[in-house]
């Protein structure tokens, strides 16, 4: 069962990374317009870089 001593912290760390990524995305406004984002990629105008 000693393996748990590694596995639990590792799983928490990975989960925490995911949470941090979610926070980052949220603060960058990536959830503000899901509908628009799903349509925008259809246009080749934003191929090089997304519209600011």
């Amino acid at each position, binding site marked *: 069962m000693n393996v748990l001593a590694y596995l639990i912290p590792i799983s928490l760390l990975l989960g925490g990374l995911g949470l941090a990524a*979610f926070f980052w995305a949220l603060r960058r406004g990536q959830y*503000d317009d899901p509908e628009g984002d799903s*349509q925008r990629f*259809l246009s080749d105008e934003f191929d090089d870089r997304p519209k600011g």
Partner: protein
Amino acid sequence: MTAAQHPSACPACDAVPLAEALAGGKGGEEGRMVLSVPAAHCAVCINTVEHALEAVPGVRSARMNLTLKRVSVETDPGLSPDLLTRALSAVGYEAQELDGTMLSTTETDRQSRDFLMRLGVAGFAMMNVMILSVAVWSGASDVTRDMFHWVSGAIALPAVAFSAQPFFISAWRSLRVRRLNMDVPISLGIILASLMSLVETALHGQEAYFDAALSLTFFLLAGRYLDQRTRVAARSAAEALSALEVPRAQRPGGEIVAVSDLKAGELVRVLPGGRMPVDGVVRDGETEIDRGLLTGETLPVRVAPGDAVSAGEVNLTGPLTVEITAAGRDTRLHRMADLVAMAETARNRYTSIADRAARIYAPLVHVLALSAFVAWFAATHDLRFSVNIAVALLIITCPCALGLAVPAVSTAASGRLFRRGLLIKSPTALERLAEVDLVVFDKTGTLTEGRPELAGDLAGSAEDRVALALAQASMHPLAVALAAAGQAAGLTPATLEDVREVPGHGVEALHGGARVRLGRADWVGALPEAGTATYLGIGGATRAYRFTDHPRAGAEQAVVGLKALGLEVELLSGDVPSAVGEMAARLGIPSWAADLRPEEKAARIEALRVAGHRVLMVGDGLNDTIALAQAHVSISPASALDAARVVADIVALGGSLEHLPEAVRTARRAKARILENFALAAAYNIVAVPFALAGLASPLLAALAMSSSSIIVSLNALRLR
């Protein structure tokens, strides 16, 4: 159960600080504008809208938000919003300016992110604790189990403390005014589950409900987020539309000032096409004004120096200088809006199905839990065991499904209607709409465009060609309509010399050396006819061109559709009987009344209510606002006066009324789904409660029951989309 999202009891009050902030912020200086573009729906729309706006000189950048159907534009300071809306209408998108300060939009965005953040934390914590719980469920024991419980607790307690705050706050608010809403049992369930699990963990107990506390928080938060999200989309547009009467006015020197800076006794200039920003007396200039929005009349009224004008009226033909008698909140317009706010409070006492359910449910569950505790304690004298039974009961019955039952359905229904251009402003609007059995329409501006259309065709005679040429020289609505009809008939305008417009009267010119006039009957020398008409005077002869008001797109389908749903339809108008009767006949509305003052309209609605009807009022003018507030539920077109829009429960974006029957149908189906969801939740409780009472509930059982009932309820709601 949505108390957390009710900042105030009256929607009109919400709009007041907004309007003040707007007026105080001298909108536009920041160079940021937000336009509502209800018709946008696809990738091509995004490009078209953004390009059209970026092509306007002075625009730095434009970004479309398709979810909220609005576009935010960075501009050079002082750019007129009219330029932007005109650029958009040139590419086929109807647009309206929203508030200039971005105050409310950033605020709602912030709230939305806040909810999403809590939801994310709850979801993260729930999944991790659930994984740890699987180990416990599959037989971990002694030290291992205790360790897993401690790790779970270390994740769950902070996560619950952060994520469940909206419930705690709402429950506390409700308790402070000695009422029970759904958030009280929710909060109690979450807190007790966390505390009991903590105690059990400390006492090396076998069962901890950390995962239940978290999944409870997660599912309920999901419901709450959905609820808030749809409301934000609707409210940001509807509320901010009240800023449509852009609160700016022009001084005689040409200086543009905020209406909030104007005082009685000062002069303002109102150009043709502009709306009166204040109440006042005309000092200079002659014109015709359109009072349609205030009184429902379609015929323009002529005003000259000494005549009184009211805020909200539209100046049609000549520039005016107006001495202010009342500005801002003292105007007749605002006093009327205050009356409306009072009428509104009565309607705000409507109790939603969810609140009614909470009122039965919350005491029932608490009494059940208490008696379970008392009974088990009497039987076993084991305090810890009895408390565990009671808490397990609270967790099992905690209204996961109930919490999702309403928001999941109203999200699906509101989303469906939003895609058809209907913004649901009030949280109980759908429920009330489902109960409606009679629809009352206003005429001018609601069933009609409030825009005249030439009656009959132009034959193409020499007179018609002269009339067309004269009409083209004026921006008067009747002249514009005449010119449009002439163009449609393919007529060539006659050649005129020395064309000039006489404000308040009409247009005159020389045709082959003879004076020709197009305008008011007395000026042209014609006998006035009934209804809306303009008159041509040519060589001593006169001729009348009659106009009818054009019915709004979809008005006919709306009336037919509503009748097909078994609703009675009535037409109440402040316009003259001939015009109202004609429109009623054209649309097939059997019962109508004309010449009604605003109070009489409201009285009619009240009479219908007393007779047992649930009335849906559809109207747009100031003369409708009291009736709108009095009705069981109300709808306004987006072109309506701000007072009417603020009062209405639902705002119809876009010009068409054709989706009204769809709205009623959707509301009825939404109500049916809500009741089904309650039935599902009740059935689940009937099965689960005996287990909990018998002391057979385990954390695993709770997790299974909670997840499955939440998913079933959400899936049922999705059938609406």
